[in-house]
């Protein structure tokens, strides 16, 4: 069933998004069932849900991707709806179909909408019917010689993309015609090994482009609206790091035009539930449809804060077959929201993921601060899942207020035991280009460096660091010498000897 009444939700996911959905369900008074792998027994989603069922080993293929087990757990626990979260099976049309065939409600769009939007070419064909603008490019399944011709016709720079890729994987930019043949061979080889499908296509590479996406909400009563844009240009290797709503680049007119285009794109596949239209916008404010994400996004909280709409709750309401809460598209966002993704990655070592136990975590609080997280002091970041520790979101009446609150929150946030990217965010929030809103999708990789700061540390700060490091070394040294030195007795040796002899008579 795509929509219908239900009384218990199984959450086929883990981490912060599972916790987010549990909270929405609890706010609606609906009980939840969590599932977990061997390494997630102590995770928050397992502890916060009403029921929890172990489903297998730590690797996703043994647990969170096991469609058969998930459906079986739903049957066993009496859950009559499944929420997939994001990642794992969220955009798997086959799983959505299985869930519906079981007579369960799938809290998401129809399998056909997922399948169409999940296939780049089918998506392009579908949205084209509704006059949605697309980035100039080729079809897939074209031979190398023809692709080389097509690339020069489109004009360099271009990007070679894997048909089966996505989420930033399987993309290779090519600047000049000279290196194209070589890059094409590499791209095909990579696509073959990563996705088992070597098919690629070529697209125009936009210069100075921003990644801006629109939140869509559609119910089964024929209503489709948008809830404004999110600016997601701060990314590294196509992984978003910071998102904002609204975007400094989007004025009321552009919002209305892009919003209408997004609604048209969603309607082209008869979309129901929450979804996101990702767009590229060039410097001249030309915008192009990139893809549709047929699920709740990681960065959905920024939209929630500027609209006052609880998107996870709306998803459940829509899946129950009710009319969605908001009835009109959002043209005037309320204030400004920023989200920083706090990842277990070391910004001083090329964003290398870090695993281990979080020994201490002190969360920031105070006005305008929200933290969505699935971990706690003592929990383990394992290599099996992504490196997201938490999402830190701040709201302000203006962009500057939201940014100042974010700076405050970042400076309060303490995570110890593993490396994390809070220093990256602090550095970014001090960067003049970021503050001025002057950035595109290449900003972090090309123009941002953890070795440079807008301001040098003051002399007194440097001296404090020197003192702290020295006192640390001094105490450690003293501690080491104490361990080696014989323990002092609290009584005289004569007394001690007397007691010893009495005990050993």
């Amino acid at each position: 069933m795509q929509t219908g009444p239900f009384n218990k939700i199984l959450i086929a996911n883990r981490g912060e998004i599972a916790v987010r959905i549990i909270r929405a369900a609890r706010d609606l008074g609906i009980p939840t069932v969590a599932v977990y792998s061997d390494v997630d027994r102590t995770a928050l989603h397992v502890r916060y849900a009403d029921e929890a069922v172990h489903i297998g080993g730590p690797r996703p293929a043994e647990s969170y991707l096991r469609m058969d087990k998930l459906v079986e757990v739903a049957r066993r626990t009496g859950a009559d709806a499944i929420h997939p979260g994001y990642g794992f099976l969220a955009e798997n049309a086959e799983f959505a179909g299985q869930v519906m065939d079981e007579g369960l409600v799938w809290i998401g769009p129809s399998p056909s909408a997922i399948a169409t939007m999940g296939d780049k070419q089918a998506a392009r064909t579908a949205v084209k019917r509704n006059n949605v603008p697309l980035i100039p490019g080729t079809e897939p399944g074209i031979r190398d010689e023809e692709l080389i011709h097509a690339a020069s016709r489109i004009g360099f720079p271009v990007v070679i993309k894997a048909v089966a890729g996505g989420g930033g994987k399987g993309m290779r930019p090519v600047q000049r015609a000279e290196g194209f043949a070589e890059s094409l061979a590499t791209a095909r080889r990579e696509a073959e090994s990563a996705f088992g499908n070597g098919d690629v296509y070529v697209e125009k590479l936009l210069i100075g482009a921003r990644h801006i996406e629109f939140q869509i909400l559609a119910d089964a009563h024929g209503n489709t609206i948008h809830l404004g844009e999110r600016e997601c240009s701060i990314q590294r290797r196509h992984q978003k790091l910071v998102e904002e709503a609204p975007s400094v680049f989007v004025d009321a007119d552009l919002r209305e035009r892009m919003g209408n285009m997004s609604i048209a794109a969603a309607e082209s596949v008869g979309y129901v539930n929450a979804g996101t239209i990702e767009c590229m916008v060039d410097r001249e404010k030309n915008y192009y449809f990139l893809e549709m994400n047929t699920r709740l996004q990681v960065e959905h909280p920024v939209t929630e804060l500027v609209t006052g709409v609880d998107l996870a709750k709306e998803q459940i309401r829509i899946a129950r077959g009710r009319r969605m809460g908001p009835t009109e598209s959002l043209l005037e966002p309320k204030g400004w929201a920023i989200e920083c993704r706090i990842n277990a990655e070391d910004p001083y070592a090329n964003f290398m993921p870090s695993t281990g136990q979080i020994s201490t975590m002190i969360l920031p609080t105070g006005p305008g601060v929200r933290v969505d997280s699935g971990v706690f002091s003592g929990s383990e970041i394992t290599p099996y899942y992504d490196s997201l520790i938490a999402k830190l979101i701040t709201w302000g009446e203006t962009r500057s207020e939201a940014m100042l609150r974010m700076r405050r929150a970042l400076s309060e946030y303490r995570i110890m035991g593993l490396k994390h990217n809070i220093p990256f965010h602090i550095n970014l929030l001090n960067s003049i280009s970021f503050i001025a809103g002057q950035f595109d999708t290449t900003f972090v990789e090309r123009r941002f460096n953890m070795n440079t700061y807008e301001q040098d540390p003051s002399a007194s700060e440097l001296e404090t660091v020197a003192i702290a490091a020295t006192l640390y070394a001094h105490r450690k040294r003293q501690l080491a010498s104490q361990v080696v030195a014989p323990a002092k007795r609290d009584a005289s040796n004569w007394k001690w000897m007397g007691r010893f002899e009495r005990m050993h008579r």
Partner: protein
Amino acid sequence: MKYVAIINEQRYEIEIDNAGGVLVNGEPRDVDFLNLGGSLFSVITENRSFEAVIDDDEDKIAVMMTGRLFETQVLDERAMLMLQRRGALPVSSGEVHAPMPGLIVDVTTLPGAAVARGDTVIILESMKMQNELKSPADGVVSAVYVEAGQAVDKNDLLVEIKASDAEA
């Protein structure tokens, strides 16, 4: 005790007396240095309050303060003497270890190849990301212990580099 702390190529001569008093380059400083549990410390110097996360890694002390990482070296009298004799700071080891369990995607170097500090030598896939592992020193690759497609555990030795300045 007398120490020399080196940060950003600046030297600070710091003396800690038996009563715990601190002198920086001969001048007294009012310092309250308190452990808040684990590696978290509160430092109040001349009434200015800071929180710092301090960890040590071999011969370096990493201080995370005001959202920045400061790599510092603290030398006591004995270490200073050793340093004067040797004439240089110790060079880092030329071993590249796996920072986490994962799958080797690519080995981008060969035994005998010359590498510069910061050159990518291994691509390791873990946590859904491809990570470039870099050479810790300028030198020549003396051994490669893994190949593409191989699964590795945390701390496995992957590549050894003979640093060019270690030969002297």
